[in-house]
């Protein structure tokens, strides 16, 4: 018999070794997240999946489930903090949804919808970030990067290429390309790479496919991200 804990009063079974996020996902409970992907080791960087466990906050993607845990997730207090984190992500980058090909398929945007984010609230940074269009098949728009590092993990662990890395510290942290020129064209990156599929926002885009599905008919236009099976990693587009 498996052990159990509760999330918002609902009893969740789990296997020893599973995280709270894994057990919740298996039970069909959506916990907002951006840097978590079931195929990769969780790094707990975005903190969107923060829950309250026995009165203390913790990232549910890295926290091992234990029998008898009392987890609070979908509460106004926790969601308000998630909404604030999401607002900070929006103002730290240049997220202009109407001109983004990923709009409607974007996990950041869909999570903000889920959390009822009506405005970014904080002052915008409007950072100066270049676009890398050097690769024949792929466009990189760093303006939308949220530093989830999923492309870094996918390239290193699945593709065995190490095309991406995060460099710098604090607000200066940014995504870099592992080539002497710093350009994607000077790497062996390929459209078939796992790293080309995992970006939850509109940084890594396949060229010449823009607006194949009209805005308004895309994944999260149809159903919210909280619907089981609608989390982006399970239905990667493009």
């Amino acid at each position: 018999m498996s052990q159990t804990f509760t999330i918002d009063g609902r009893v969740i079974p789990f296997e020893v070794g599973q995280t709270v996020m894994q057990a919740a996902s298996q039970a069909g409970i959506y916990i907002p997240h951006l840097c978590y992907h079931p195929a990769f080791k969780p790094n707990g960087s975005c903190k969107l999946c923060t829950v309250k466990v026995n009165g203390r906050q913790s990232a549910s993607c890295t926290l091992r489930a234990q029998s008898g845990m009392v987890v609070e997730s979908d509460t106004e207090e926790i969601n308000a903090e998630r909404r604030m984190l999401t607002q900070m992500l929006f103002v730290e980058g240049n997220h202009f949804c109407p001109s983004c090909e990923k709009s409607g398929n974007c996990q950041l945007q869909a999570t903000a919808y889920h959390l009822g984010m009506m405005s970014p609230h904080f002052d915008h940074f409007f950072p100066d970030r270049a676009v890398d269009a050097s690769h024949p098949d792929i466009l990189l728009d760093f303006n939308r990067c949220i530093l989830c590092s999923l492309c870094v993990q996918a390239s290193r662990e699945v593709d065995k290429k190490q095309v991406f890395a995060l460099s710098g510290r604090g607000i200066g942290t940014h995504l870099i390309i592992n080539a002497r020129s710093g350009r994607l064209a000077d790497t062996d990156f390929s459209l078939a790479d796992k790293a080309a599929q995992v970006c939850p926002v509109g940084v890594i885009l396949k060229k010449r496919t823009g607006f194949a599905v009209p805005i308004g008919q895309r994944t999260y236009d149809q159903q919210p991200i909280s619907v089981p099976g609608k989390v982006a990693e399970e239905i990667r587009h493009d």
Partner: protein
Amino acid sequence: MIEPRKKIKVATTSLAGCFGCHMSLLDIDQRLFTLLEHIEFDRSPLTDIKTCSPDCDIGIVEGGLCNTENIHVLREFRRNCKILIALGACAINGGLPAQRNHLPLAVLLEEVYHTSPGLANGMIPNDPELPLPLDRVHPIHEVVHVDYAIPGCPPSGDAIWKVLTDLLAGREPELGHGLLHYD
């Protein structure tokens, strides 16, 4: 004699926007007649009244801030309207105009008035009556307090209708899935 119920006074304006949000306001379609039973328009491109009355109940602002005139109008709205609503992506995050923010203003003016093809002997307009452009485009909440935001580029008529009718009914406005859009 029973006095007729006072109508809610609504002012609207477009700052650095494209008037798409005002077009969406018209997309409320026949429900506009229902709306007009409860509201009257004050300063607005729809009425062509030039300044806000001091007793406006709701101010609706489309567009961001790209010049000093925009800031002047925004402050007039904040001063005269009890509730201020940011309508659409430009008012909320600068939108399309803000995508010039990583380029120096001087370079932009040079490109537009001096070096673009077909602009022989062009000059950068310098009439003192022209409002000075800002070095960056800003969303309106960076200058005044904003009470509510209706995201979208533009928001749908349904979304605007929902927020206005929620406010008229004394409810906290809420846009659920399908009405809440950033694109």
